[in-house]
C-alpha cells in the first residue's frame, strides 16, 4: 500500500461536517472515572527514555530469580519469546497454551513480514522514521514513548532472530533482503517468503523448547486459563482447565504475564485461528485490569469472501495483490452476469474513480469501507453479494502470465484451492474481514496492567498501534515485548515485592476456583436447544453489521440493546453435550462465546462513546463533507483531536453495572498530529 504516508496537513476544523454527538456518559451508559496516567514512563528526551528506564529498574539477583515463579499464558511471538527469555534469565517459568503444542499459536499465520529500522538499504530509514510512521499510521492514538521504544528495539529483534536460525530471505551476496510494505517509502520489512510469522514463531518456540527440556520452563499445553487469582490487590496466579482431563487447577506465582493475543474472534468470522479467544484478557478485566480502546479493530480488505453459512473462518491474502489488481463491481445493482460478460463501460472501478491519486492502493480501512459500500448498494458479486472483483486481466496483458505468476503465484494457488476458480481466467473475489485488534488490556510503559503483577504483552495489550496498525508491525511488537521489554521491566516489579507464598487454600484461590467451576457447571447442566456456535454466529453478524467497518450511533445503540438479550438467551438456551471431566470441545467453545458476548458489549459502548473517526474506527457521523455529491475529499474519516486525543481505559464495575471510563490523555511533543487525506 502506498498511502499511509501522506503528509497532507489539513485543519480538521475546516472540513468537519457535523460535530460528533455529545458524549454524555449517562446517555450512553457509563460513568466517568479518574483520569489515568502512565507513571512508569520516564520523561526527558524520547531517545533516552528506554535506556533510562532500564537503568533505573531494580534488579533481581541471580539467586533471587531462582526463587521467583512467573506464569506466562500463551506461546505466540510475545509469549514464546517472553517465556524463553525469562527462563534464560533464571526465573522459574510456568507456561500455558490451549493448543497441543506451543508451536501452533496463531502468530504462525502472519504472512507479510517484520519491520525493523536497520536502514540496510541506505534509503533514509531510521528509528525516528519508523517511530513517526507508526504514530502516524496509528492515527495519533498511541503513546509516543512506547512507540519510540518499539522502533528502537526493532533492530535488535532482527539480530536475535537471525542468531536463532530464522531463515529470512537473502540476496545473492548473502545479506538480508528487505521489501517495502504497508505504504511506507523505505524498504524496512524483513521477510521469509509468505511465512514470516511461522518462521519467527518457530525461532521463539525452539528457544522455549530448549528451556522446557532444561526443566526451567514447566510447559502446560492443552491447558486454558479461565480466571485470574488476585491476592491483596496483586496478580498471584491463574485458574486453568486441563483440556484433556477437564481438571480445574490453580497455579500460583509471583507475577502473571498474559500473551493471549487479540479478540478478533468476537466477530465469529475473522482471520484469527478458530480457537483464538478473549477469555484470558476478559477474565483479567473482570478482576480489575482496565480494557483500553476495545473498539479499535482492524479490517483487512483482501480476504477470500465467505462461501456459505458453513464458513468457519476467513482466509487473508497478502495486500500486495492490490499493487497489480484492479478492484471493481458492476455499475448497476443486481447485475449477475459473469464478469467477462460485463463490458468495460458497465464496470465501476470505484477506488480509481474516488481516489484518483492512490487508486487501488488506498489504505486498508478506506479500501474496506468502499467495498462494503458497494456491496450495501447491491453491487456486490459472488454468493450472497458479499464480494468485489480484484481483476488481473490488465496486469496479465501488461506483464504477461510469467511475471504475474512470479509475483503472486502462491496467492493465486491458495485462492484457487479454496474457491476452485482460476484467477488467471476469472477475476478474484475479495471481501474485507476482521484481522487484528489494536485495543486490549491497558498497560503502562512497563507493560503492566492496572492490576499490579499482571502484565500483558503482544496483541493482548493496547500499547503501540493506536487506532490502526501498520503492516508488518504486529510481529515486531510481539517480539519486542517478549524478548526485550518485558524481561527488562518485570524484574523491577519483582524486585520491589517481598517474596511470600500464597497458601493454596487462600480464600481468593477458593473464590476463583469456585467461580470457574460454577460457570462450567452452569454451561454443562443447561439443557438447552442451541449450540454455542449458533450463538457465536448471531453475535458475529450483529457485531459485523453494527460495530464493523463503519459505525453509527443508531446502529451501536441497537447493538447495545440487543446484546444483553442475546447473552440472556445464551445462558437460557445453550446446549453443551458431554461431561466436564474429559476433552470437551463444545464446553471450551461455550465458555469462550460466553466471554465474547460480554466483551462485545464493551466494544460497542467504546465505539459509541468515541464520537470521532480514527484509524480502524469509522463513525459515519464524523466524516468530511461531500460524500453524497462525490466531491473530492468527501466522506473521509474525520478525527477529533480536541475531543478524543486519549486512550479510553475501561474499568469493570461489576455485573450489570455501567463500566467506568478512565481517560489517559495523549501528548504529542515530537510529532504533530495531521489529518489523513487520500483523494
Amino acid at each position, binding site marked *: 500500500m502506498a498511502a499511509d504516508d501522506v503528509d497532507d496537513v489539513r485543519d480538521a476544523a475546516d472540513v468537519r461536517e457535523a460535530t460528533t454527538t455529545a458524549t454524555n456518559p449517562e446517555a450512553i451508559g457509563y460513568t466517568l472515572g479518574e483520569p489515568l496516567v502512565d507513571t512508569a514512563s520516564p520523561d526527558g528526551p524520547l531517545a533516552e527514555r528506554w535506556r533510562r528506564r532500564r537503568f533505573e529498574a531494580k534488579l533481581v539477583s541471580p*539467586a533471587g530469580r531462582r526463587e521467583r515463579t512467573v506464569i506466562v499464558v500463551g506461546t505466540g511471538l510475545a509469549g514464546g519469546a517472553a517465556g524463553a527469555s525469562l527462563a534464560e*534469565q533464571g526465573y522459574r517459568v510456568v507456561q500455558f497454551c490451549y493448543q497441543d503444542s506451543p508451536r501452533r499459536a496463531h502468530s504462525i499465520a502472519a504472512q507479510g513480514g517484520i519491520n525493523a529500522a536497520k536502514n540496510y538499504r541506505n534509503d533514509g530509514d531510521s528509528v525516528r522514521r519508523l517511530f513517526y510512521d507508526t504514530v502516524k499510521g496509528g492515527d495519533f492514538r498511541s503513546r509516543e514513548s512506547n512507540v519510540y521504544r518499539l522502533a528502537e528495539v526493532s533492530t535488535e529483534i532482527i539480530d536475535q532472530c537471525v542468531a536463532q536460525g530464522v531463515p529470512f530471505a537473502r540476496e545473492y551476496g548473502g545479506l538480508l533482503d528487505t521489501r517495502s510494505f504497508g505504504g511506507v517509502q523505505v524498504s524496512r520489512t524483513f521477510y521469509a517468503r509468505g511465512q514470516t510469522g511461522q518462521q519467527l514463531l518457530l525461532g521463539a518456540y525452539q528457544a522455549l523448547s*530448549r528451556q522446557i*527440556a532444561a526443566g*526451567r520452563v514447566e510447559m502446560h499445553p492443552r491447558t486454558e486459563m479461565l480466571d485470574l487469582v488476585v491476592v491483596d490487590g496483586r496478580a498471584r496466579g491463574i485458574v486453568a482447565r486441563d483440556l484433556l482431563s477437564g481438571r480445574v487447577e490453580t497455579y500460583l506465582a509471583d507475577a502473571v504475564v498474559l500473551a493471549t493475543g487479540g479478540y478478533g474472534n468476537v466477530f465469529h468470522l475473522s482471520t484469527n485461528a478458530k480457537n483464538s479467544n478473549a477469555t484470558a484478557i476478559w477474565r483479567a478485566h473482570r478482576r480489575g485490569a482496565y480494557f483500553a480502546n476495545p473498539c479499535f479493530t482492524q479490517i483487512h480488505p483482501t480476504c477470500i469472501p465467505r462461501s456459505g453459512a458453513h464458513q468457519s473462518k476467513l482466509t487473508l491474502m497478502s495486500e500486495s495483490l492490490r499493487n497489480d489488481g484492479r478492484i471493481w463491481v458492476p455499475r448497476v445493482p443486481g447485475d449477475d452476469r459473469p464478469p467477462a460478460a460485463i463490458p468495460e463501460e458497465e464496470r465501476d472501478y470505484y477506488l480509481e474513480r474516488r481516489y484518483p491519486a492512490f487508486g487501488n492502493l488506498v489504505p486498508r480501512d478506506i479500501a474496506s469501507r468502499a467495498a462494503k459500500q458497494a456491496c450495501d448498494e447491491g453491487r456486490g458479486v459472488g454468493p450472497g453479494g458479499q464480494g468485489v472483483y480484484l481483476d488481473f486481466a490488465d496486469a496479465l496483458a501488461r506483464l504477461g502470465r510469467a511475471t504475474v505468476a512470479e509475483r503472486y503465484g502462491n496467492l493465486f494457488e491458495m485462492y484457487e484451492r479454496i474457491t476452485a476458480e482460476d484467477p488467471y481466467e476469472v477475476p478474484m473475489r475479495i471481501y474485507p474481514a476482521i484481522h487484528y485488534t489494536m485495543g486490549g488490556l491497558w498497560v503502562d510503559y512497563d507493560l503492566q496492567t492496572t492490576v499490579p503483577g499482571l502484565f500483558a504483552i503482544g496483541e493482548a495489550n493496547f500499547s503501540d498501534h493506536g487506532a490502526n496498525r501498520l503492516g508488518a508491525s504486529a510481529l515486531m511488537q510481539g517480539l519486542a515485548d517478549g524478548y526485550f521489554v518485558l524481561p527488562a521491566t518485570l524484574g523491577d516489579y519483582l524486585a520491589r515485592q517481598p517474596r511470600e507464598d500464597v497458601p493454596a487454600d487462600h480464600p481468593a484461590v477458593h473464590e476463583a476456583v469456585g467461580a470457574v467451576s460454577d460457570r462450567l457447571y452452569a454451561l454443562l447442566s443447561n439443557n438447552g436447544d442451541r449450540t454455542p456456535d449458533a450463538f457465536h454466529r448471531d453475535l458475529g453478524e450483529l457485531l459485523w453489521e453494527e460495530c464493523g467497518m463503519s459505525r453509527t450511533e443508531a446502529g451501536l445503540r441497537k447493538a447495545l440493546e440487543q446484546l444483553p438479550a442475546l447473552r440472556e438467551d445464551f445462558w437460557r438456551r445453550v446446549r453443551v453435550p458431554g461431561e466436564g471431566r474429559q476433552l470437551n470441545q463444545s464446553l471450551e467453545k461455550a465458555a469462550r462465546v460466553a466471554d465474547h458476548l460480554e466483551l462485545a458489549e464493551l466494544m460497542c459502548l467504546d465505539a459509541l462513546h468515541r464520537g470521532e473517526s480514527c484509524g480502524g474506527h469509522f463513525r459515519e457521523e464524523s466524516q468530511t463533507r461531500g460524500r453524497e455529491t462525490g466531491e473530492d475529499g468527501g466522506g473521509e474519516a474525520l478525527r477529533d483531536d480536541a475531543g478524543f486525543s486519549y486512550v479510553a481505559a475501561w474499568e469493570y464495575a461489576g455485573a450489570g453495572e455501567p463500566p467506568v471510563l478512565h481517560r489517559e490523555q495523549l501528548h504529542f511533543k515530537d510529532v504533530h498530529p495531521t489529518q489523513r487525506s487520500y483523494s
Partner: protein
Amino acid sequence: METALPTVLGMALATRTDRRPSPARLLWRSTIGKKAVMAVTGLIMLLYLVSHLLGNLKVFAGPDEMNGYAHWLRTVGEPFLGHEWFVWLARCVLLAAVGLHGVSAYQLSRRDLAARPVPYAARRRATARDSYATRTMRWGGVILALFLVWHILDLTTGTVNPRGRAGHPYENIVATFSTWYGNAIYVVAMLALGLHVRHGFWSAAQTLGVNRPRRERALKATANALALVLTAGFLSIPLAVMTGVVS
C-alpha cells in the same frame, strides 16, 4: 515446578548428557546407525554378487573355463596366502555381512512393527513411491536367506546337489538346472533378488547420506540398472541350461 537449576545463572547451559557412548555403540543402538550397518553390509554383498555374476558367466565358455576359474579362486593370493585362504576370508566377510544384515533387519523390523501397531481400516491405492520392491523388502529378505542356505548346500557343499561332485561346478550347475525344482527355486530367488537390490541400493544410498536432490534420479536409475543386470545375468544360466545352450 521442580526444576534442575544450573549452578551458574546467565550462562548458556549444558542441557545434555556429558558423555556419549562409543561410536560403535552409538551406531548399533540407534535406528540410523543400525540402518547404516544394513546399508554397508548390503553393499558388500552387492559387490560380491557382481563379481559372482561375472564369474558365473564363464559357464558360457564351457566346462574347462568354468572349472578352471573355480580352481583359480582357491589359489588366489598364493604363495602369500595359503591354499583356499582367500576363499575362506571372503566367506568370513560375507558370513559376517549376512549375519549383521539379518540381525539388523530383524531388530529394526520388530521395532518398526511395534511403532505402528494399529493398521488403518481404509486401504488406499499404492502411490508411485511405494513400489512393490519397497513393500516386499522383508519377505524378499527372508526368501533370499532361505535361498542362500539351499544354494550353499547345493553348489558349495554339494549336499543336496543331484550330482554333487566337488571341484566340478560346471557339471553341478547343469545338474541343478536340469531339475524343475532347481529352476523354480532359482527363478523365484533371482526375482526376489532383483526387487531387493532395486530398493536396497537406493535405500543404502539414502541411509548413507549419498542421496541429494540432484542425484535422486541418477541413483534410482543405477538401482534399477543393477537390479536388472543382476537378475537377467543370473537367470541367463538356468535359461541356457533349459534351452540346451549349456549342457
